[in-house]
Each structure stands twice: as C-alpha cells, then as structure tokens.
C-alpha cells in the first residue's frame, strides 16, 4: 500500500486531470486516466510508472502552483514511483536501500572493490598482460565466473520477482496479445512518451528540448551494447574456447568501447540536465536515487574504458580488480536502484498497450515516417 498522504495527493491531482483533459495529447498517462472514474492505489502506481517525467503537463497546467490546486503531477508521481520501487523490492527488507541510495551504492561498491583487490593475484602483470588468459592470471576464472554469475542471477531473480509484484499490485490484466507487446516494445525503444507531444521535455522552463531523450538513448543503447559485449565474450569463451583479452578490433571490445563511451556521454548529459533543471516538479527523494544510479553506471563505464586503455600496462591487474568490483556491486544494486524504473515503466507500457489497442495502433501508424502534423 502506498502511504496515505502520497496516495491521497496523487489521487486528488488525477481527479482534477480527469475533469480537465487538456493534456490528453502529451503522453500515455492521460488517456489511461480517462479510462477511469475512481483510482485505486494500484491504478495510481500504474499511472505513476507510466509517467516518463517529461514535465510537459506541469508547465502547461492552469492549476500548477501558485494556483490553489497546486497541481504538480510529475512530483506527485515521482513520490509514488519511489514507494512502488520499495513495495515491489525483493527481498523486502532491502527496500530500505532506496532511502539511502547514494550511501548504499558507495559502500557496496567500495566493499566489492576491496574484495576483488584482495582476491587478485599479486603476480607480475607485465609478464602475462595481453596474452590469452591474462585476466584469469589476475583473478582465477572459477572465482570470477562464480561471483559475477551468482550476483547477476540474483539480480535477475530479484528483478523478476519485483516485476511480478508490480504486475499483481497494480491489478494489471493477466494476458496481453502480440500487438500490445510490440507496441510496448516500440514505446520502450523510442521513448515515444518522453515529451509525447513531439517537442521533447521541459527541463528548465516552458521551453521544450529533445536533449533528455537523446542522452537517455545514449545511456540506454550504450548499456545494451555493453551487455551485448559481455554476452559475446561469454560465447567466445565458452563455445568457441577463445580466451580473453580480445584485440581491439573484435566484436566484444568494439561493442564495449562504443557502449561505454555512449554511456558516459549519456550520463554526463543527464546529470547536467538534472543539475540545471527546475526543481519545482522534481521529487527530492527520487533525485538521490537518480544520481546514485547514474554515478554507479558512470564509474562502471569509466573503469571499463580505463581497463581497455591501460590493459597493456602494469596497472591492468589493479584496474581489472576495480572494474570487476564495480560491476559486481552494480549487479547487486540493480534491484535496489533506479534501474528498476525501466522494468516497471516497460510493464506499465505493456498494460497501457493492452488497454488501448486502437490508440497503440494509431500511434504506431502515425509515427511511421508520417509527421504528425504536415503544417509543421
């Protein structure tokens, strides 16, 4: 259950939105509101996680503060999202990490780095660097796979339980068809609802900007590239028996390099936007969660690139230990950090697509190369 104050506030706002409906064209949230008359706690969680925080509705709202209704949907929904993250977290006691997110991520990263530095063999790296198996000379293969594999599987399990809890707590439909799935998939990969009016987000004021979309794309696709890099390396190693490190012009290294650079650019851009954004429609509590995830990802990407750049030097052993430590801490933090927003957002978009089949189809058709408005 959401806390009473946060639930009541967002319900009050959503009731006003449902009577107004001026924001209908901005994003999925408003058509989803219009389907309902009364809003349960689960409905509000669903709507809050459907919100991409573009803030278009806040700046166009005739009832925004200082109006006596003080309608501030992005902030109210951000507060609901944070509670959703806690309610869906597994195991439940670890939900407390969301309220001390920066501290939790820092301590965990530090512990994991210390662990890997301690595990690293004090061998002479100059003798083994670059040759096949150089990494395993620093950290034994079995140890590396056991720790990274176990933490990764833990993250997957915990995230899956979270997703099921979210689906159940929001009373989402039990079945959905292929077109809904495709529509949701396309929503996730295009961020169609991020400034769904077409002009992008409002970051600082009433003016629109696509920068947040582009930086988020850089981070998101960069992250996927890095993940693809790791998967390719695993296939090389365990199916073809090609032992790392790989040359620069190899699929895993190229994917990882490109992905790492894209991530760093995306994170720097997103942090810059957050630092200069109007704080009125933001939730302070969620901001801490945003920053800690971005910083952790930045450190993961930066140490990875540094390892690549310096793998033929004496620093390779130490850098490998640090990078692995950060990656393992990232895996452990995944279910208790901002990463979960992607899971719940995707689930909410899937539910939206299932509940609005015609709209999903129309939007898909409208954005297939045809500008929404030929007058533009």
């Amino acid at each position: 259950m959401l806390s009473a104050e946060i639930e009541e506030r967002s319900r009050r706002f959503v009731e006003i939105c449902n009577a107004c409906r001026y924001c209908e064209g901005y994003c999925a949230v408003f058509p989803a509101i219009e389907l309902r008359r009364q809003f349960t706690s689960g409905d509000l969680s669903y709507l809050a996680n459907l919100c991409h925080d573009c803030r278009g509705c806040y700046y166009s709202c005739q009832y925004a503060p200082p109006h006596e209704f003080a309608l501030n949907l992005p902030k109210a929904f951000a507060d609901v999202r944070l509670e959703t993250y806690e309610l869906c977290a597994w195991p439940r006691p670890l939900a407390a990490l969301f309220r001390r997110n920066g501290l939790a991520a820092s301590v965990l990263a530090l512990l994991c780095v210390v662990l890997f530095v301690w595990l690293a063999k004090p061998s002479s790296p100059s003798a083994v660097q670059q040759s096949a198996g150089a990494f395993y000379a620093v950290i034994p293969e079995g140890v590396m796979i056991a720790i990274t594999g176990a933490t990764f599987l833990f993250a997957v399990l915990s995230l899956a339980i979270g997703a099921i809890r979210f689906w159940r707590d929001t009373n989402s439909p039990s079945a959905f068809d292929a077109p809904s799935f495709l529509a949701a998939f396309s929503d996730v990969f295009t961020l169609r609802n991020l400034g769904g009016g077409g002009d992008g987000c409002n970051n600082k004021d009433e003016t629109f900007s696509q920068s947040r979309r582009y930086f988020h794309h850089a981070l998101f696709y960069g992250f996927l590239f890095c993940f693809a890099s790791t998967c390719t390396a695993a296939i090389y190693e365990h199916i073809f028996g090609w032992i790392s490190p790989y040359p620069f012009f190899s699929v895993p290294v190229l994917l990882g390099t490109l992905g790492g650079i894209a991530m760093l650019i995306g994170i720097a851009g997103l942090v810059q936007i957050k630092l200069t954004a109007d704080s009125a429609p933001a939730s302070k509590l969620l901001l801490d969660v945003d920053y800690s995830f971005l910083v952790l990802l930045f450190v993961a990407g930066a140490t990875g690139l540094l390892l690549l750049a310096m793998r033929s030097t004496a620093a390779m052993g130490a850098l490998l230990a640090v990078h692995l430590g950060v990656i393992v801490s990232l895996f452990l933090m995944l279910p208790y950090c901002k990463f979960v927003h992607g899971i719940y957002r995707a689930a909410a978009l899937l539910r939206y697509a299932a509940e609005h089949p015609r709209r999903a189809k129309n939007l898909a058709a409208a954005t297939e190369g045809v500008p929404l408005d030929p007058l533009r």
Partner: protein
Amino acid sequence: MESCDVLVVGGGNAGLSAAITAREAGASVMLLEHAPRAFRGGNSRHTRNLRLMHQSPTATLTGSYSSSDYWRDLLSVTHGKTDEHLARMTIDSTAELLPWMHAHGARFQPALEGTLSLSRTNAFFLGGGKALMNAYYSAAKRLGISIAYDTEVRSLCLVNGVVREVSTAKNGASDSVRPKTVVVSSGGFQANIDWLREYWGDAARNFIVRGTPYAQGVVLKNLLDQGAAPVGDPTQCHAVAVDARAPKFDGGIVSRLDCIPFSIVVDRAGRRFYDEGEDIWPKRYAIWGRLVAQCPEQIAYAITDAKSEKLFMPSAFPPIRAESIGELAQKLGVDAAGLETTMRNFNQAVRPGKFDSGVLDDCRTEGIAPPKTHWARPIDVPPFIGYPLRPGITFTYLGLKVNQNARVLMQDERPSANLFAAGEIMAGNILGEGYIAGIGMAIGAVFGRIAGREAAKVALG
C-alpha cells in the same frame, strides 16, 4: 517616461497576437500584463481550442467547415446580435490562422482519437491554452518584445480620439508610457464583482468567476468614460452552472458540471424549478448560470443516482454520496422533507420510455411542474449522488465598438487615430449574445493580428 511604437495592454491570446504581429512588422513593442508571470495569459490560459473555418481536412481538423456553416452557427446563438460585416470577415480570416499559430510555436492535438481531439469545427491546443500562451510568450521574448508583468494600466489619456499617455501601476508605484499607438486587449469586467452588482444586485457576491481575477474592466470603463462607443448589452454575461466547491477565481474547466440532463436540480428548499431535460446539453448548458443565479442565495443542487453517474464528464470534485435521499439532503444542506417529497413526486411522474443519452429521447415526466421532458428516469439506485451548483461567470458582453481595422470607434462613429482593440474587450461586436465553443479565441486571434498590423502601420508612418 518610456516610449515605444506599439503598446499592448493585456497579455492574453489577442494581446500576444497583436504584439508579435506588430513586432514582426518592424515596430518596437511593449506589452503590459496585469497578472504575475505565473498567471499570465488572461482567460486564454483556461481555453482549450479555437473555431476555424477550413475547406478540407487538416491534421487537427476533420472534414470541412465552410464560411457559411460557421456564419449560420454564429447567427443561431447570437440571434442576430452581431455585426455581419465584422463577423464574416473574422470567419474568413480564421482560415489563415493555423499556419501563423504553428509558426509561433502553437501545437495542436492530432486528430487521432480521444474525447477531445477529434473535431470538425475546433482545433484543440496540445496542453491547452496555457501551453499556447507559453509558446507565444517565448516567441515574443525571442522577437525582442518588452514584457512587463504585474503591471496594471490605470488609465489612458484620450484627447480627441488620440491616446496621449498611458498611466500604469506596478507594485504600487505609478508610472506612465507615451506610445505612438495602443492596442487594448485587456478583457471584459467579469471579475469585477462590484461592477456586476450594478446589474445583478447582491446575487453577484455569490458568483464564481471561472477565469482570471485580473479581468476588472478598468481599461474598458476608462475608455467608455472618455467617449469610446460601447457595444453589447452591459447587463448581460455568459454564465454556466459550476461546482459550488470551485475556487472563487480561476477554477477554469474542471468546475463545470455536465450532469444536469441526467439529474433533477433543486433549490435549498428541495424544490425543482426548471426542465432539466429541455434540450441536448451543449445547447442548453448556458442558461443554467442564470437559473442558479435566480435561486435563493444563488445555490442549487443537482441530484442523481448510481445508474447515471458515468453518463457525464467527471468534475474535479467527487460527488457527495449517500445511501438515502434524506441523508443526501442533510449532507448537501437541502431541506430533507422538501427533497423527499420532490423526489417521490418526480419518480411517480416518470413515464416509461427508451433511455438514450445521445438523442432527445422519450423518457419524460407527466403531471408535475416543471416537467422534465427528456432523459427522465426514476432516481432510485443508491448510492444517491449530489453536486452543489453556483453561477459561474465566464465573460461579459459589454465592449468597445471597433471597425474592420480594429480601430476603436468614438461615440460619433469616428475611428480613433491610434487606439486599437482586440479580444474579449471587443468580442461583443461579433458575439452580442450566446456562445459557441472556440469563438472567443478565434476573434482574439483574428483581431489581435489586425490590431498589431494596423498599429504598426500607423506607428511606423
């Protein structure tokens, strides 16, 4: 003392259309807005769409809406209280508005799906009127228009139909401007309760003003006092029934109630006083402001039951619910015995029929006065729901008479040399009575552009 080519008084749709047009014509422009930045835009910030003539479908409009259809719709609501020449010119000019608005940042809802966006006659602003105002203010800033918020115009010094000087007040400090030309676009007087009391008596105290509290009519009164020709019935205003729990000012769209055709409406004593099912709602909703204003203490109550709740748009305020009529009366503050009697008589008077909320159906009452002639169904499925109603005033009809160049006319029909008007302050030239959705914004946009163009022409010689 400051000076400029064109001074625009009032920063709503008409004022910004005028300011932008004048600036693009090369004039130096200053815009004075009474409201603080957060509440800028006058009543335009509460609007949703504008009515446009168009020959073929556009991205935001379906079908076509011809000049003659538009004229016929206008004629039917004004009952002839309109200047045909100005009205037809306005209608024809709306065909040019979309590209201009787009070029200055306006965004519209695509004609895809949804309750509001799909329309033949009206283009809906994406995000509503405040989003449109934001776009226009951004454009104005980009163009180098000087904008002053919190700045009220107290008076204009008019000598032989020429504005010499404009007196302003900002945070209590007086100042003045000597512009070459002036466009007044400062709205009507609907937020001036004392002025409304001249026509409505003390009942006006209980009016809810749906829009901006800054529409005090100071400029309008000042110009009329100096011999500007009036237009429109000063005693008339457009008022609808709104939720009595709405804020005194600026409640906007969310306080409207569409439940009346599916309810009975009673006064404090629990008595009905008018046929709630007289005609389809869009045609009749505007009479209910006046009807409620005539009730004791200017309050009435719409009462219906669970089976009708989903037939109308929700209000921002949840309905008051009760398991019995007596309990509902008590919660609403209506005389319980009176309401119970009314309800019993009404339910007995309902004749069988085939209910259809979309047409004038045959569900009606027999043997009670006043009758309910359509959508009459027994109110008998708990929970019973009620909404308190107050008169909600939207705008006043009194304005300044203008010619086709938006020039303010003096009482001797002579046009002013350098004074122009646009928007609600002159809408009475075209809309002398009644209302059709989106006509106010259309008049504001058309006359704003004309006023800006003509003012710049005069100022630049």
